[in-house]
């Protein structure tokens, strides 16, 4: 079992700027854990603290239960894959991969052998004597992974390594990374701003915003039960309808909105009388004029996506609305500029107090 990583009330300030505050979570050994957030949310700072390039100004970081305080990146059982990959351009591929072993005083014969093994693991046989500049983006990616794995880290830290690749290759590399993680059993901590990437690859995800940890959970959990307005709107597409909570009973919140009283599940922090929003996913909306919660909108445009179409409209209170309509139902869809009614199940709505 590879090592766990535990953050206890970790904070990082650069001078007067607080980049990260009071972050606590535990990554289990062998887990594929993602830290998701928009750029500038502090996710890279967290990764660099785990790697040892930054020492947290508050709190502790434990790897396998051991406090990492004061240890540099070369003294930790972690390996970092940089966003830019940071391959050494003047060394052939195999020397890149074996650099960590070279630093550990492994003999040249052993280094070459280990490099060849890793080249095989990453489907790069025969590329050992090429220079990094001669490889394609995906191949360079694999070299960076092989180089990081060569030192047999317990924890592999990945800083948006796929962001430079084109979409097809990125999707392919996602699957490859996931498979590699399962095969090696190494703990992966993966940084990304791409929510679909995080949802597709991770066992669990930590969502960050403005240096604050918003929520930690499995992808499905974050999507279905967002704990904060930020998570609700950042993870996946959603509609937010503003109002004031009028009643809470049996896990259901009633919220007085400009469109009438709507009902949804009670989210964390909701209390009677507070300003709140009801969040409902586009795919939870059905074209119906009656039901538990019915809202009316003017259809502005319909984007056909293949299996489904996204209807963009304007609610009567002026807010935007997106509804996903299965393509087989498109015949029943209203004309552009026409009125449409949408309904959603109370269990599909979540009411969260405005943060």
């Amino acid at each position, binding site marked *: 079992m590879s090592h766990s990583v535990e953050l206890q009330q970790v904070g990082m300030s650069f001078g007067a700027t607080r980049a990260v505050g009071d972050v606590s979570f535990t990554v289990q050994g062998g887990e594929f854990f993602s830290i998701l957030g928009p750029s500038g949310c502090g996710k890279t700072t967290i990764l660099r603290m785990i790697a*040892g390039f930054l020492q947290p100004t508050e709190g502790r970081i434990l790897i396998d239960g051991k406090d990492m305080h004061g240890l540099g990146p070369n003294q930790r059982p972690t390996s970092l894959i*940089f966003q830019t990959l*940071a391959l*050494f351009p003047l060394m052939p591929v195999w020397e890149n991969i074996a*650099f960590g072993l070279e*630093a550990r005083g492994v003999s040249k014969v052993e280094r070459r052998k280990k490099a060849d093994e890793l080249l095989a693991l990453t489907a790069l046989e025969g590329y050992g004597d090429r220079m990094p500049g001669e490889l394609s983006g995906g191949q360079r990616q694999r070299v960076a992974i092989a180089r990081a794995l060569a030192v047999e880290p317990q924890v592999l830290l990945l800083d948006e390594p796929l962001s430079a690749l084109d979409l097809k290759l990125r999707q392919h590399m996602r699957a490859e990374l996931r498979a590699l993680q399962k095969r090696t059993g190494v703990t992966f901590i993966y940084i990304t701003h791409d929510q679909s990437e995080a949802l597709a690859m991770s066992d669990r995800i930590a969502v960050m915003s403005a240096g604050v940890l918003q929520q930690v959970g499995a992808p499905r959990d974050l999507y279905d039960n967002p704990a904060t307005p930020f998570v609700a709107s950042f993870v996946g597409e959603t509609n937010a309808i503003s109002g004031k909570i009028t009643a809470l009973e049996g896990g259901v919140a009633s919220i007085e909105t400009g469109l009438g009283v709507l009902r949804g599940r009670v989210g964390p922090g909701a209390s009677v009388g507070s300003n709140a929003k009801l969040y409902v996913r586009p795919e939870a909306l059905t074209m119906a004029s009656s039901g538990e919660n019915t809202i009316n909108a003017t259809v502005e445009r319909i984007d056909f996506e293949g299996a489904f179409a996204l209807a963009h409209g304007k609610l009567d209170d002026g807010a935007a609305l997106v509804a996903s309509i299965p393509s087989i139902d498109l015949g029943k869809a209203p004309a552009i500029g026409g009125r449409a009614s949408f309904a959603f199940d109370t269990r599909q709505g979540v009411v969260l107090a405005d943060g």
Partner: protein
Amino acid sequence: MAELYKRFGGGLSTILVALVGLWLIGMVLAPNIMMIDYALRPNLPPAQIGGPNDVYSLDNVLYLANEAVHRSIFFKTIWASALVAFVTFVLCYPLAFWLAQHATPGQTALALLALTIPFWINEVLRTLAWYILLAFRGPLNAVLLSIGIIDEPMRWYGNGGVLAGMVYAYILFMLFPIYNAIESLPKEQIEAGRDLGASTWRIHWRIVMPHAKAGIATGCVFTFMLAAGSYVAPALLGAPGSRWFTEIIYNWFFEGGDWNRGAAYALVLLVLCLFVVLVTLKLARVNLTDVAK
């Protein structure tokens, strides 16, 4: 050339080309051809110039080869110039690395200003400052005596003085190429090395120096050439035992009155410098265009 004409038009381009040509011919080619001409002809009284004895030969060069003292001064100048380049490199590299990778913009500006200000003053005067500093009854000895490092004043003029003066005079020629080269190294390269467990020494040897190779070679070549051709520092800071080859050349011209032999000596120095430079660049796999940048 076609590009030049397209950009500046016929008239201006022709003037530019003519000026460059004039400069190359008048300031570079002609003096060197004259030097070669002088070097290969014997030193004759004015009446015999152009006469039957005025023939080309290698006598002047061979004179140097057979003159043991001059020969040893020549080789000493070569290796001492290499030493100057090496010492300058050892001093500049850490500073260049710090400036390029760690210093804040403010610190960099301040350090570069501090390093550049002395160069607003003429080289002779700067060397004269060292002459005063290193004097037998000068400030350096006074300071060392007062803090008890030495018991009696030292004589600094000589090899040590020449080395100090030259390193000081040429430090910027080493610093800037290396600084420029290291500045273009992404920080992640060094961090990746550290993350993979490499020692500071290995990071420099395997990552920073290979990246900065062109800059290092350029700095060393500059410093070596300047040192080998230096006259002021050895003349002011030297001692009879630390004679520089340029002083011998000077003596042939202005004291020995034998311009031909002086030209031959200068030619040999030029050829050997060129050879050293080309070999260095070849070893560092840098071509002359990189140096010119």
